[in-house]
């Protein structure tokens, strides 16, 4: 088994082993789950160490025939775009596992098992180089998340989880048709069905077909992102999900959408990108401001963080479609940042929810006096999310805005106001929760962070700071692959223009 396969499948193997363990004692189950989630993390660090900087192409590729008569293969590979997203996934899962020691008390074994299955789905989707395989992983992700929300979620969990699944499926099923259509086009071109990334990349489709395929893929990804106005499932899913579910949903699953654009929709159907860009850029800009405005008025902390995701993911989309090296790098960087800081925010909200069983901002106030350690940690995470210089969020947003401005000045201007609004709603929430006098007597009895909780949040904080002051090791690994995508898209849009000119010239000479 190759390294990438090991990273992909070791969580699933862990889940199976976990399912075979006895239900009691719960402590044993928890420890086993943590160990099972650390194995893929360590493996992904090995992968990180083996990754060759400066190489644009896929590395550590594994290929096996799977369904040969359709040209479907088991193909995995990693490049600068997926590298850190995989590591982010394996990094967040142990954190979520450890965090769940405090807030998951029913069906503990199942919770951890679903989380590990989910991890396999996410990593597989990030590594798959065959579109059939990608689609399988893409769909497999849904099932454990459906259970995580539906079994461990809040009051409205059934509604939220069904909405989540139906929205996501609506997009992904059309993507399935698009994948089939693409494979058929491969057959038309080469004589045999083919689902590999390379076979799709080699297709030369006319603009109209590229547009349709881009739309089908794009819809699936845009729902996942979620791009305004397809975001309505997200606040419900987030609010109802248990803390771990929210962290993974925000931390990794939303990135599947943006990753999908960058890996599949844009480079595979490059001619369509130019046509779609104005739409997506403006929807992103609207999403940034809209998400921020709606977040501002949320009385519920978790809903506030959920809407802030709509806003933050807008930056990622904006940077991606600017198609300048700086902006795309910023948007990939921002994917990681959002995973860390929003994941961190959900963890912080979850920790206080465990103690008080309410997420209403109005139910808190003056926590600094009661739980200073909590307040201090919350402050750092909040600043990371707001994009304070010196922390990771700043680098990402800065690169996106700088890289986008020359191409889409007006949209950038609108987006920049989102940065200000972002600071506004986060600071305002922080102020209402942490500062001032203690308004509710119950809050006086709150306990500060336990050592376990410190262990949970410390790696997140450490990474936020590290990525804020030293982005180079990340950027230099990403950049070659990003440049390759940009070059491919731009070559296609350049190729789109000349043929008409040539045709005209030919027509005149005749």
């Amino acid at each position, binding site marked *: 088994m190759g390294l990438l396969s090991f990273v992909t499948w070791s969580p699933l193997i862990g889940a199976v082993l976990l399912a075979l363990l006895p239900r009691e004692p719960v402590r044993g189950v928890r420890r086993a789950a943590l160990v099972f989630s650390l194995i893929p993390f360590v493996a992904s660090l090995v992968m990180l160490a083996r990754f060759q900087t400066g190489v644009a192409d896929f590395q550590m590729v594994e290929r096996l025939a799977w*369904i040969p008569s359709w040209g479907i293969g088991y193909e995995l590979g990693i490049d600068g775009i997926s590298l850190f997203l995989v590591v982010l996934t394996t990094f967040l899962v142990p954190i979520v596992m450890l965090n769940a020691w405090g807030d998951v008390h029913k069906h503990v074994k199942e919770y951890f098992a679903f989380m590990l299955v989910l991890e396999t789905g996410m990593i597989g989707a990030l590594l798959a180089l065959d579109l059939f395989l990608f689609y399988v992983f893409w769909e*497999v992700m849904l*099932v454990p998340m459906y259970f995580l929300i539906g*079994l461990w979620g809040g009051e409205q969990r059934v509604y939220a989880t*069904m909405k989540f*699944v*139906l929205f996501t*499926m*609506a997009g992904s099923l059309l993507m399935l048709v698009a994948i089939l*259509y693409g494979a058929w086009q491969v057959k038309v071109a080469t004589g045999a069905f083919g689902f590999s990334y390379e076979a799709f990349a080699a297709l030369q489709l006319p603009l109209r077909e590229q547009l349709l395929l881009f739309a089908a893929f794009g819809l699936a990804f845009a729902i996942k992102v979620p791009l305004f106005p397809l975001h309505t499932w997200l606040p419900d899913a987030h609010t109802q999900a248990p803390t771990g579910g929210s962290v993974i949903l925000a931390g990794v699953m939303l990135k599947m959408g943006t990753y999908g654009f960058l890996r599949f929709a844009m480079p595979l159907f490059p001619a369509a990108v130019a046509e779609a860009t104005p739409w997506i850029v403006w929807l992103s800009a609207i999403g940034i401001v809209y998400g921020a405005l709606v977040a501002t008025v949320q009385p519920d902390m978790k809903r506030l963080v959920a809407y802030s995701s709509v806003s933050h993911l807008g930056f990622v989309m904006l940077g991606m479609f600017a198609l300048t090296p700086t902006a795309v790098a910023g948007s990939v960087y921002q994917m990681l940042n959002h995973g860390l800081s929003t994941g961190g925010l959900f963890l912080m909200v979850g920790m206080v929810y465990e103690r008080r069983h309410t997420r209403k901002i109005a139910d808190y106030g003056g926590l600094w006096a009661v739980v200073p350690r909590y307040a201090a940690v919350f402050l750092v995470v909040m600043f990371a999310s707001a994009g304070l210089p010196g922390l990771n969020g700043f680098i990402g947003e800065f690169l996106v805005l700088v890289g986008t401005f020359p191409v889409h000045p007006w949209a950038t201007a609108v987006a920049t106001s989102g940065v200000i609004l972002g600071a506004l709603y986060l600071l305002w929430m922080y102020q209402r929760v942490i500062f001032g006098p203690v308004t509710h007597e119950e809050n006086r009895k709150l306990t500060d962070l336990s050592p376990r909780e410190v262990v949970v949040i410390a790696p997140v904080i450490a990474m936020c700071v590290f990525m804020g002051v030293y982005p180079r090791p990340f950027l230099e690994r990403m950049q070659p692959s990003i440049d390759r995508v940009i070059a491919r898209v731009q070559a296609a849009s350049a190729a789109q223009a000349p043929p008409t000119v040539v045709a005209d010239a030919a027509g005149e000479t005749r």
Partner: protein
Amino acid sequence: MTAELSSFVSGWQAGWPAFLVGLTAFAVMFADLVSDGKDRDGLVIVGLIGLGITAAFSVSAWFGTGDPGGFQNTLRADRFGLFFTVVICAAAALTLLMSVEYLREHDLPAGDYHALVLLSTCGMVFMALANDLIVVFISLEVMSVGVYVLSGMLRGDKRSIEAAMKYFLLGAFASGFLLYGIAFFYGATGTTQLDGIAQVLARDGVGPMALLGIVLVTVGFGFKVALVPFQGWTPDVYEGAPTPVTAFMAVGVKAAAFAALVRVFATSLEAAAVDWTGILQVLAVLTMSVGNVAAIAQRSVKRMLAYSSIAHAGYALVGLVANSAEGGSAVLYYLAAYTAMNVGAFAVLIALGRRGEPNDDLDAMAGVGLRQPILGLSMTVFMLALAGFPPTAGFAGKFYLFSAAIDAGHVTLAIIGVLNSLVSVYYYLGVIVQMYMVEGTLVPVSPRSRPWLLWVIFASVVATFWLGVLPSGPMDAARAAFASLG
């Protein structure tokens, strides 16, 4: 023996798969007679052995090289027929297995029951082999009569009697249509043999009489596989019949009827493809959509599965509409996949049932997933498979069907199919919601030990994943089977 007779029975081995099943039925009856109706398990074992021999015979015949035709080519034991023989035998074997405890708990006569299932199976296998419209008709009747009786076996239950009546009356109508259609074909072409019809139609073109034949035959088959608008009987009959019989109808009858349907259309009506693909396309869209939309509203899981089986017939029809080698093989593969996951779903339903209480109500499933983890998990697998989640048989099957449709240029049809899958996700997940996310109100009973049933469930889970994860082998078999048609 006159020369005429000997030429008629030459190639008699073509009928062997069906004869073997018929012999098994008689063996079961005989065993029942000798054992005084006491040894129920023994009867099942006799039946399973017979079905196993039939399947083994079919597999060995698959690799044989002789002329598959027999009885003046009215029967053809080609790979197409053998593929369906194996699927039908599997469906019958699983039905027998899942009936053991059910019959005991409902005090039903085991000997009659098992013999009827096998006789009906014999008709199904004949149908899979039939290369002549008259044989199609006779085997359809053999199959149906058994199922008419089986569906009314719960004599104390009004719903069961109503089911039998309804199925019998409407089934008789359908047979009439089919026979009428056959008569028109005979009138148009002077033969009832499929290859003969193909030759005449290719030579003379498709006249109004043949066209009428196509329409009437489509109505006859449409009733048996429950295509909209001939589906009206399905929910009531499925709901009223004893659950193992429902499962048998949903997979066995459907597979056999589809076998005949595909053979008739793909073999003999090639020349008329322009006409019937249009008709079937409309039927496919209607069937998928009506089945799925109606399934949403059901409170009974059995009725929901009835409507969902209508929808699945619609998906399968998409492959036929594609009218290509890939499309035809996709239908075969899909029916095998559907057999695995649907039998499993019904088996779980039986396992959840308690005598005298409704076992099929959605509310009764509340909290089951946590109380009975094995059943809950298996049902989850079957529901996700029926909804088409990877990596299960349901996904691979739909993938095959829709890719064949796109390959044949029917992109819109594929999109309609996919949107229907989305609708179906809602009600299949509804069952899971009920099992895991709703607190159970019924007093939990300790689950009864039903080893036979558990084997069925286990086998179905394994088959559902096998067909989904490693579809290559079965797909190649389906392709070879379809390629063996004339």
